């Protein structure tokens, strides 16, 4: 199968007052249509930067795309004009972000915001309200015809994130980039949202990039996993085999951080960065 997305040797820098800082140092991966890839890593490892770079959403400056290419269905995203980029954003690659409460515009109803996305990318849709209801229903919002007239602040965090997902899905993207979609939610809602994404994967044919720092949530959903550490992909493979048999010391350290149910109560392992950096260079 032809890959949906192919990232080759991508390097991104940020210009700061103290000189250029490498955020992503030459990473490569590829995705098939319908595949789910989890990008796991700690804060500052470059995982979110990678996600935003896919449609060139990083503010430039300070971001500089130093080298590499991002091939979306064979076309290099980094060489597209601003107009062509707008055509890709939402339509081909859609995003959901960490903070659902602030990712929705506070002065518009849910219906308005989803309708706006539909009008933008799917001009052929005539009954927009019906389409909004359809997608809110798809993400598991009860009584969507009533709920869509609510403002963001009238919904709970979990509902807001569902609305965000509905907005992203309503553009019918080929790839959904979920950037820490559950981090701002409490644990039971986290499980619900991940569950929702799992079910959506089956119902809607769509590839997903799940960006997270939490190894605990990826096992049931991701086909493959890429572990990022200090701007590099240090481990890349099938989820099951990475979880079972991690090769890189950083991956092992991350997996050891997950609390185990029923395990003897000990102190959780922490990651000793100095030692790790010395080990992997």
């Amino acid at each position, binding site marked *: 199968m032809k890959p949906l997305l192919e990232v080759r040797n991508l390097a991104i820098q940020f210009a700061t007052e103290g000189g250029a800082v490498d955020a992503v140092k030459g990473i490569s991966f590829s995705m098939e249509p319908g595949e789910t890839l989890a990008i796991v890593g700690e804060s500052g490892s470059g995982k979110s930067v990678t996600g935003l770079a896919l449609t060139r959403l990083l503010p430039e400056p300070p971001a500089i795309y130093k080298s590499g290419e991002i091939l979306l269905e064979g076309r290099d995203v980094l060489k597209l004009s601003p107009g062509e980029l707008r055509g890709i954003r939402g339509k081909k690659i859609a995003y959901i*972000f960490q903070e659902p409460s602030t990712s929705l515009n506070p002065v518009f109803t849910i219906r308005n915001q989803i309708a*706006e996305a539909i009008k933008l990318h799917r001009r052929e849709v005539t009954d927009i309200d019906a389409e909004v209801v359809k997608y809110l229903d798809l993400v598991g919002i009860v009584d969507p015809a009533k709920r869509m007239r609510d403002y963001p602040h009238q919904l709970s965090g979990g509902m807001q994130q569902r609305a965000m997902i509905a907005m992203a899905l309503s553009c019918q993207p080929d790839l959904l980039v979920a950037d820490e979609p559950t981090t701002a939610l409490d644990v039971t809602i986290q499980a619900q949202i991940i569950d929702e994404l799992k079910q959506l994967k089956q119902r809607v044919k769509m590839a997903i990039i799940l960006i997270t720092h939490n190894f605990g949530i990826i096992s049931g959903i991701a086909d493959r996993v890429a572990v990022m550490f200090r701007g590099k992909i240090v481990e890349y493979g099938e989820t099951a085999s990475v979880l079972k048999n991690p090769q890189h010391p950083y991956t092992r350290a991350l997996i050891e951080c997950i609390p185990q149910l029923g395990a003897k109560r000990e102190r959780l392992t922490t990651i000793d960065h100095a030692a790790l950096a010395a080990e992997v260079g």
Partner: protein
Amino acid sequence: MARFFDNIWVQDAIVVFGFALVAALIWRGSRNERWQRAWKRLRRDKVGMISGVVIALYLAVGALEAIQIPHREWYSVSILGWLTQSIPHETSYSAPFAKETLSVAKAEALNGTHILGTDALGKDTFVQTLRACRTALIIGGLTSAIYIPLGTLLGILAGYYRRWVDDLIQYIYSTLASIPEILLLISILMVLGKGLGTMSIALGVTSWVGLCRLIRGETMRQAERPYIAAARSLGQSQWKIVTSHLLPNVLHLVLINFVLGFSGLVLAEAILSYLGVGSPVGTASWGAMIDGARSELSREPLVWWNLTAATAALFGLVLSLNLFGDALRRAFDPKRG
């Protein structure tokens, strides 16, 4: 060109067109779901409705003064002037309900009863106060119509695009702000000539700086929020982000600025008239009436009614605008039930 605008029917057409434009905007807005919800809430808001009615009264009086009709003796007369032509002119000051004029040399009997007395030229103060509505509304309304779109748009552009756009806009407003305001106003009026229209332009050009700064700061704050990033990630165009995401989120500041700035504009007219570059002599204005109080309050006996009438009228308008502005903000606030 000037002759064309001197024609009273052309002037009337402009006034009618202005009112029609506002009516059309409201009619168009009434089909919008957000406006319908706001209207429902506003209708339940007693203070809001009362202040709205008071503003409508001021507008009606202003419109009566603004619309001219031909007249036998004078070239033209406003509807308000025509309605009040039976009220006689006196020769000098007279107190409310007084029987004779206030004159140091020789008091004269009055031709009629003046409920708010008369001014230095013997004109009825109550009529003058009503006629001055037009001046206040033109100065406040026209100036706001110039400086609010200007300040808001430039503020959003500066706050959203940053970099050279921000530098350029900041450069312009810093330059404007560094020139003493009154000096700038006078020089603009010297170039454009006297008149209410030119005064509005001059005030509009000088008063957008504060609003622009305010909007720029708020836009910077809003632009950092994830919903803007989310809109970008959906492929929204820059212009759409500015107009339909940033603008509604800074509009509350615009509304407050408009209401608070209105009284300042009416008083600015007084200052300019005092300096001799404001409205043409003979234009009824609250500013001129308040300004006249400088000499009137030092007379013996005290002439207090001109100041009182003008201040009360201005107070009523500004208070209603404030209350109505608050009610509007409450009605449009999505966080209220």
